[in-house]
């Protein structure tokens, strides 16, 4: 398929140093380059402080790079303000509080996210057409949220809030979906359910996705590609075919070889379900 060959995200020699010129100077992205094809679903793993979240922040424009470039669907967004590029990038954080406004209702939160498509400032905040659409979409999540559209999001559980956030990010199909350990704060059962929903949404919309995870097993089985980061760079990039026969031990061994260290993420999950 020729469509599969489109480069959706290209990061070219990204450099970012925090506290430049100070004793605590710290290079968090070290000439990192990465290309994602349209429809790629990449799991990102790495030890503490490897630069995983920093990479996401760089893509989202939380800060600007000191050097290098970020291209989204061929467009240079290196110095575009965060809220502009958010039009095409959906991001779900680990903290369920971050993605939603607690004092707004579910439908208000969704309406706000949906307004990424240009909406007139004085147009009604929510139209009945939108409510219908939101209800239908929520119903597919099978969490009963479609009957609680007027509930304030602050009253929902963490899992329910993550589902709402996930929906907010994908109501308008984004060019890139970033999942920053989005199931880490949830209990195992909810976590599994959210992963199920994630996989379905990504598949249905052929979303280009990056997912940070500390579950190495999930990293090897989710999506079509796994990358491992260390000290602000990518040290392993394993594609579909190569990944197939790989065990957790293989992955950890490869990490030790590349970085001369033992994998030391204190929250890492090694167990198979």
């Amino acid at each position, binding site marked *: 398929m020729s469509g599969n060959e489109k480069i959706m995200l290209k990061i070219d020699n990204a450099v970012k140093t925090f506290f430049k010129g100070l004793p605590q100077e710290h290079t968090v992205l070290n000439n990192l380059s990465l290309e994602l094809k349209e429809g790629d679903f990449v799991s990102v793993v790495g030890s503490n402080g490897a630069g995983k979240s920093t990479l996401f922040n760089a893509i989202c424009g939380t800060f600007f790079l000191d050097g290098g470039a970020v291209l989204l669907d061929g467009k240079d967004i290196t110095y575009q303000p965060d*809220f502009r590029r958010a039009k095409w990038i959906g991001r779900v954080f680990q903290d369920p*509080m*971050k993605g939603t*406004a607690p004092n707004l209702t579910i439908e*208000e939160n969704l*309406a706000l996210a949906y*307004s990424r498509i240009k909406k007139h*400032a*004085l*147009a009604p905040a929510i139209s009945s057409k939108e409510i219908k659409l939101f209800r239908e979409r929520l119903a597919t999540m099978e969490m009963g949220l479609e009957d609680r559209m007027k509930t304030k999001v602050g009253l929902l559980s963490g899992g329910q809030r993550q589902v709402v956030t996930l929906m907010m990010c994908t109501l308008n199909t984004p060019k890139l979906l970033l999942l920053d350990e989005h199931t880490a704060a949830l209990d195992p059962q909810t976590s599994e359910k959210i992963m199920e929903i994630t996989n379905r949404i990504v598949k249905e919309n052929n979303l280009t996705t990056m997912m940070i995870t500390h579950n190495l097993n999930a990293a090897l089985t989710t999506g079509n590609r796994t990358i491992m980061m260390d000290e602000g760079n990518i040290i392993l990039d394993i594609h579909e075919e190569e990944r197939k026969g790989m065990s957790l031990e293989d992955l950890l061994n490869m990490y030790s070889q590349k970085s001369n260290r033992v994998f030391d993420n204190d929250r890492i999950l090694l167990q198979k379900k």
Partner: protein
Amino acid sequence: MTIILGTAQLGFIYGLLALGIYISFRVLNIPDLTAEGSFTFGLAVSSVLATAGHPWIGLLAAVAAGCLAGIVTGLFQIKCHIHPVLAGILTMSGLYSVNMFVMGERANITLIGIDTVFTDVASLIPSVDKNIVKLIIAIVLTLIGTVLAVMFFRTHLGLCIRAAGDNETMVRSSSINVDYVKVIALAVSNAFIALCGGVIAQYQNFADINSGVGILVVGLASVIIGEVILGKKSVTIGLVSAVTGSIIYRIIIALATTYTPLSAYMLKLVSALIVAIALSVPAIKQTILLQKTKKGGV
């Protein structure tokens, strides 16, 4: 009877102030001190234009003046990254000079014998008692203000403002320019506050450069009293309760000055105490709960 009418008139007029304070304090989550300056700004502009024979244009100009003051505070916040409270203080402080200039370097202007919106309407319906006319104008102005505010918060922009006060990260990730949203909110908030000042000037036939002192606390007291009575379930209820709170606040003040030995100058202290006590209720509740838990019975 005069006291009741006067209280109702003030209650409704200051309802406009309560709407403005509600928007900055409850929706945007910022105690915006610009209010003290913009209230007097509206008052100054309105009285000067009324003196020049344009009382109605005076009210419109007061609205514009308030918008301007809010925009300045907003720009301090978002462009200069000044702390929201300090940004308000800077605008308030600077506005003192501006207001003095607008009032022609006089500390006060009297409007006695000059056409105001109140005398204007009263002359149209000479058969109705002047105090009743004043009340009707106060009610109509505040009603229009409330309806417009309620409608505004039902628009997309209104929703953005509410979300910006609730979770900024989420608004940014929804590809909305939070900075722009905040400036608009501050402009709208201060427009209401300045309009209130403009109406007050023409209502009391008097404008004083120090009218704005303590006005933020008056507004906060109204908002908080309203919330105690009507709750804060939605923005619509919040806006209505702010106006209701303003009326009740005036009743409390009237009762206090009529039936207690409190002098009028004590009112600012009373208002400040009302706000301080109301805001400390959650902390007090927590302490009581902790004491109960310690004793072993909940």
